[in-house]
């Protein structure tokens, strides 16, 4: 919906849209512009008349008017009445000053609005200028050191208690096969020079998935170690074929 109002009669020539105004001062500024004179030389009396006429027209057209338009209207009416009186009869002796202040405010608003327009025409980031589309995360390197105190370190040592005198405490043997164990086992099981599959040499009690994998991996490493020492030979027909082992 668009409301277009033509300025009535003798001052015609301006066409304004009520919806285009964000407030009474902007409307006043627009009306002042229509006087086509420097804002310093603006006629507040003429401006007040135009403003009031404009509001009357808006009312006739039943346009909603915000309260602030009416507040300014009342104030302008009062200012006008004061300006029409000779200075010695005014209740507001500073009426001329009030008129100058209004003109000053309109000038400042006008300048700021031009500033806004100037900003809007700048090559804005994300509109005319673009940042890197794929910014890269810089790697993080920690260089903060530790916050531990000597007391904490010593407490930790004390907690470990048991291993006094430089003697290792043996924990229950894990169900995972170490390379050492595999090495010992392979050395023991391999006899004679016939080829045997490495997988056949895994311990039978290691049937669960994880222990079996650990037994296979450790036995494989152990077989490589034995081959390196020159104690065994390894043979594999092709990739993924059974790995064969025999004593050298």
């Amino acid at each position, binding site marked *: 919906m668009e409301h277009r109002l033509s300025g009535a009669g003798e001052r015609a020539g301006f066409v304004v849209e009520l919806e285009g105004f964000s407030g009474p001062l902007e409307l006043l500024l627009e009306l002042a512009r229509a006087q086509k004179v*420097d804002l310093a030389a603006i006629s507040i009396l003429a401006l007040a008349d135009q403003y009031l006429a404009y509001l009357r027209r808006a009312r006739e057209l039943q346009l909603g008017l915000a309260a602030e338009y009416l507040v300014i209207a009342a104030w302008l009416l009062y200012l006008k009445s004061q300006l029409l009186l000779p200075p010695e009869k005014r209740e507001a002796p500073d009426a001329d000053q009030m008129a100058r202040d209004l003109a000053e405010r309109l000038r400042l608003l006008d*300048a700021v*609005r031009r500033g806004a327009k100037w900003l809007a025409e*700048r090559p804005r980031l*994300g509109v005319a200028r673009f940042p*890197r589309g794929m910014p*890269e995360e810089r790697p993080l390197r920690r260089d903060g050191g530790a916050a531990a105190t000597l007391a904490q370190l010593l407490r930790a040592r004390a907690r470990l208690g048991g291993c006094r005198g430089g003697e290792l405490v043996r924990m229950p043997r894990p169900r995972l096969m170490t390379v050492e164990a595999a090495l010992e086992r392979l050395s023991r099981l391999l006899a004679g020079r016939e080829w045997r599959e490495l997988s056949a040499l895994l311990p039978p009690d290691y049937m669960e998935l994880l222990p079996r994998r650990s037994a296979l991996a450790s036995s494989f490493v152990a077989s490589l170690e034995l081959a390196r020492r020159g104690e065994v030979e390894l043979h594999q027909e092709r990739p993924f074929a059974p790995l064969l082992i025999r004593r050298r």
Partner: protein
Amino acid sequence: MTAPDPLSIVEALLFAAAEPLTEAAVQEVLGERGDAGTLLRELQRQYAGRGVRLECCGGRWAFRTAAELAPFLARIDRRARRLSAAALETLAIIAYRQPVTRGEIEALRGVAVGRGTLDLLVETGLVAPRGRKEVPGRPVMWVTTPRFLDHFGLASLEDLPRLEELEGASLFNPADDR
């Protein structure tokens, strides 16, 4: 590995970053390898006239595409939100009169500043509160941020045309607007 060219380090650092970096931040990465100020200006010189420029906004450095190439970058996602006339006007008032309270902005615009307008400006990172005015009610004062400069491609607030200039030229020249 040979020691990397310090200019390459500055180039890579700024290319990787999404946000502008201060000279001090660049110097920290460089360490003893070179002088950030000298290298930044050298890099800016090398990129002058290319499709990407090294810009310095409010003492922060960032690579940005050249403004005149905008028509070719239409397919790039335009993340910047359109600012309403009211938001732009509020922003201009803050830019020119900072630090300024909401009440002062309203007095100048002659209309209440909608909560949403300031919120939007804060959300887009263009303005920020700074301090309170020592008057009854101690209202928050608003200022523009470094991002404001980056957003509008201004080297500093000094780049804003002076209000008197804006006011002076053919203020009510009937030909000049609307």
